[in-house]
Structures are given as C-alpha cells and as structure tokens.
C-alpha cells in the first residue's frame, strides 16, 4: 500500500482544479462560525500533569465540512468534547460567532459514537427533546420532529423505540435530533465508528445529502482516512503527545462526491499525504530499528 505512490504518478495533493479552488475560496470567504484559540488540555497524572492538547488553534467557516484526524492519543475527541464544553478547558478559548463559550449549549449540536438516544422515548419524542428544551410548544415540536425524521428518511419509524432500530437508523435519528435544534455547528465524534462497513458507507452518503440540503457547518472526528477525504472540505491533522496541529489539508476532490472518486488521483494523493502525516514515516521506523539494533549490540 505504502509503495503505491512511487509506482503511480500522482499529482500533488496541493493541486486544485478550478472548480475545487472556487469552492474552497468560497468556503474560506464565509464568516467564521467557531474558532478554537490556543486550546490547552491537561490532566493530572502520577508525575504532575499530562498535557493532552498543546496550543491547538483553528477556525471553521460557515457551511464548511471539516474533519479532524490524527493518531490515537492525539486528543481529537478531547478537542470536539471541549468545543461542546463537555470537558473543562485548561487554557485557551472556544469562540462561537466571536463569543467565548463555557457551557454546553444547543448552538453546538453533537452526535456521539455511542448511541445516545433516550431509550425511554420514542424516536419522535427523542427528536422533540431538544425542541421542547428550546421552548417550542408540543404541537410545533412534533411537527418539526416529523419533518426532520422525514429528512433522514425515518418518518415511518417515528413511534418506535430506539431499541427497535438498527445502529445506523439510531445514528440517523441522533443526527435528526441534533439538527432539529438548528445548531450553528454540528459536532460529530466518530459517529459511524460503531457501524459495519456497508452501513457506514450508506451513512456517509446520507450525511452528504443532508449536509447539501441543510445550511449547517460540520466538524467531524474520524480515524478513517477514506471517510475524512470523502466527506470534508478541509482536514485538520493532529499529531500526538501532546496533541498539536500538524497541518490543515485542503481536499482537492470535486463535489458532489461519490464513491467512484475513491480511486481518483486527487483522492489517492490526499489520502497518501494524510497517511504519511499520521503514521511515522519510513525514516523514523528506520531510526527506531537502528536503536533496537544498538540496544541488542550493547546487550551482547
């Protein structure tokens, strides 16, 4: 797999077609919805404190689809949980529309990897939950909930309980529930991580459809590079120990996206670049190997 780039004559991931460039320029000209400014997260540990995130900063524009990837332990989940204010901020700021936030709120909807539908409420009432929190009348909440369920294609299942739905369906309800609140940004923390491959592919298509239909900014955590490239305008790559921004990669793949593009040169070159960023390069592996040999020699 890693030998492929030398055989394929791929363009640089930085080369963008006119159409893609126009699209990205348009995204970047939009106002900033959420800004993460020098975010630091420390946990107490046995030897003092452990820094999980170190000075992470990035900005997300309106209508943008941004993915965050990184090796395990880079704190990508922590970033998104801090954006939702589900984790305390050690230092730095989360700004929504320019104002710092410190409490969880309906302006930052979230979809979790775990199925978090309320099992005692029907599908419809799950979607109504946030609407009623927001002060909507029961009648309005019910009408809106059914509309949102229609958008994710689950209106016929409105009166079922979550336990009666498959994992993919539950996640679609969770997306409808988050979107019904009309959040400024939708935070998705590996939302398809627990699904099987086929369902995951379907869900990715669904999400792109929904995103196209609705005026929403999405921040998406994943460890699946295909998923990141397939869905996003830009991909934020974090490095681990401590989590730092490594690169903000603009995806040169045109929209609308389809699974056919998985093998297009732009797609492959982006994916290979991300792969190189995330996994230690061949050189480092070589160095580690040298160290092992040295240790072995000394042991003799």
């Amino acid at each position: 797999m890693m030998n492929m780039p030398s055989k394929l004559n791929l363009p640089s991931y930085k080369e963008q077609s006119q159409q893609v460039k126009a699209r990205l320029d348009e995204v970047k000209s939009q106002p900033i919805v959420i800004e993460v400014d020098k975010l630091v997260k420390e946990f107490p540990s046995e030897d003092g404190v452990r820094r999980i995130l170190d000075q992470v900063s990035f900005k997300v524009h309106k209508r943008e689809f941004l993915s965050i990837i990184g090796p395990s332990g880079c704190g990508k989940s922590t970033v998104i949980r801090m954006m939702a204010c589900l984790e305390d901020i050690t230092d730095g700021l989360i700004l929504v529309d320019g104002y710092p936030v410190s409490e969880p709120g309906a302006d930052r909807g979230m979809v979790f990897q775990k199925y978090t539908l309320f099992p005692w409420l029907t599908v419809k009432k799950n979607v109504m939950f946030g609407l009623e929190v927001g002060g909507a009348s029961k009648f309005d909440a019910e009408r809106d909930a059914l509309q949102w369920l229609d958008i994710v294609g689950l209106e016929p299942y409105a009166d079922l309980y979550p336990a009666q739905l498959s994992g993919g369906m539950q996640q679609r309800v969770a997306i409808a529930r988050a979107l019904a609140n009309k959040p400024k940004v939708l935070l998705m923390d590996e939302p398809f991580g627990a699904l099987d491959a086929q369902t995951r592919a379907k869900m990715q298509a669904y999400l792109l459809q929904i995103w196209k239909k609705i005026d929403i900014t999405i921040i998406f955590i994943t460890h699946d590079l295909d998923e990141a490239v397939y869905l996003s305008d830009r991909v934020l790559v974090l490095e681990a120990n401590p989590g730092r921004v490594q690169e903000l990669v603009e995806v040169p793949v045109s929209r609308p996206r389809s699974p056919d593009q998985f093998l297009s040169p732009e797609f492959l070159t982006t994916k290979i670049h991300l792969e190189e960023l995330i996994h230690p390069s061949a050189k480092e592996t070589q160095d580690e190997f040298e160290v092992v040999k040295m240790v072995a020699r000394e042991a003799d």
Partner: protein
Amino acid sequence: MYKHEKWFRFGKDLSPERVRGLTIASFMLPLILWSAISYIPALWHPEVQINETGDSIYFDAGDRVDVETFALENKNLADSDSIPMVGKRVNPVYFPAPHEVTKAFYYAFVTEPRRDGEPWFHESVAHSVRVVFWGFILSSLFGVPLGILCGVFTTFSKLIEPFVEFFRYFPAPVFGALAVAILGINDAPKVAIIFIGTFFQQVLVIANTTRTVDFSLVEAAQTLGAKPGRLLFKVVIPAVLPKLYMDMRILLGWAWTYLIVAEVVGTSTGISWFINQQAKYRMFENVYAAILVLGFIGLGTDMILAAIGRQLFAWEGGRKSVFSRLFSKTVPAPAEAL
C-alpha cells in the same frame, strides 16, 4: 418439540415449557417432600399418639410419647398381663401435615379471637402490612432522592455516603429500646425500626444504581441545551427508573424481614403477635399458616410489582406498554383530530 434439548448448558435459556415446568416443580418438590414426611409413617413419625391408655396409669388419651417410651410402657404392661396401650405413629406437634396447615389457613381467618379486644387474624395481617408500608414509604421518601443525588453529584456522595456506610452496620433491632423510649409503645417505633433497617441500605444501593446510568445520555441532553433541572428529571431519573424499580422490589423484601423484629418492639402486634400466641397454645398449624401468609403477601406483592414494571418499562425491550396502548386508543392521533 425440544426432544434433544439438554438440561444443563452454560448460560443458555431453556424452552418456555421447561421453564414453566421447573417453576411449578420448584414449589411442588418441597410440597411433595413435606407430604411424604407427613403421610408416610415409615419416613419419620418419631412419636406415638395414644388413643387408648389400656391399663397404663402414666398416660392419658391424646398424649404424644416417644416410640421408645411407648414400647417400654407396653412391654411393662404386657409383662404384668395388663391391657396394653393403643396408639398411632405421628410426627411431633410442631410438624403439622399439609392438610392441617391448609385447614388452619382457612380457619385462622374465620376463627374468633380467644379474648375480647384481641384482633382477628386478618386484622393482624393488615396491621403488619400497614407497618411495613409506612416504614418503607417513609424510608423511600428520603432514601430515594438522597440516593439519586449521591449517585449524580460527588459532593453529595462524599458528604453523605461515608456516614451512611458506617451507620448501616448497626443492626436495626438495637434501636428498639431507644425507639420505644422516644416514640412510645404504639406503631411509631415499629415503623422506625423498618425505616432504619431500610433507609441506610436504600441510600447506598440507589446511589450505586444511579452511578450505573449511561452518562453519555446526560452529555447528549446537554448538547441539546438541557439545563441541570431537566437533566435530573428528564434524563437521569427516567434512565435510572427501571433499575431503581428493581432495587425497590428487593428493598421491600428487606423491609419485610425487619417486620418480625419490629413487631415485638413495645407491644407485640400483627402477625408476630398472632404467631407467638398460637405457639403458646401449641397450635403449630396456625403458626405455619401465618408464616405462609407472610410468604404469599411477599411473593404476591413482588409478582404484581414485576408485572407493573414490565409495562412501565416496556421500552427497555422496545415494546409498547399496555397503558400506552390503552391511551393511544382513546386519544386520536393528531392527523385524525384535524
């Protein structure tokens, strides 16, 4: 059918027929054992009940004596050419047969009290139920909210649980004398004993149960804009209810076990009083009948609560409850109403 189904398989369910059969057997086996010991003299019957005393001057008709004593006396009588005693093998008076207990079960309810002013059996039973009920309700009134708060907020947990943990090792009965001194000799100290016996366990059990709630549900609700009050009442409590309900059924069982202690505190009342009275009269079949009543009330209550629970928490299995089905029939859907 389930011809080749094995009886013993690790962690596997049995067919419904077998489950039903085993449940019935679970009650039938002790009953069969009891009947066997009661009706087959060869199994035990260590005493002889004397019907005719013959020439014996030591015994009266109706006396129960050891088999050995009976044989010795009859041998003595035979040696002196006297008329021997006639009797039949019986079990001790404290081991009545099933039919005697069944009869007693019925007669206990219809027999007038021996003395004026003494309660009928059903009044004793009602008294017992009342004491348990109030003890348990009062305990739950404080124990459940406190347990939930401890489960949700570490501040409550660390402030309350260490002392409760210590206090629960005091056996409730040791507070009997104190409760009588403070609360008088009527039902108040009895209710207090059941309260003490239940409350401290309840706080800890419910706090632990609350801690098992999936707090990602709380986080989801937070990202939907829910504030603390709603998080507690619309998320944590509904989430914990099925397990809490289960806990309450178990705790109610514990409350029942404290009943007998509670009832002998101060003036003896209720089923315990009845049992003690009947034991004094050596009416052991009545004692067993009363014990069975306790069992039936306990099991009956639990079965009713379990059935209600299955309906209340139908959503756990993704089912509609009977209640909601009734409700949805009587209220037309919005589309039809328009």
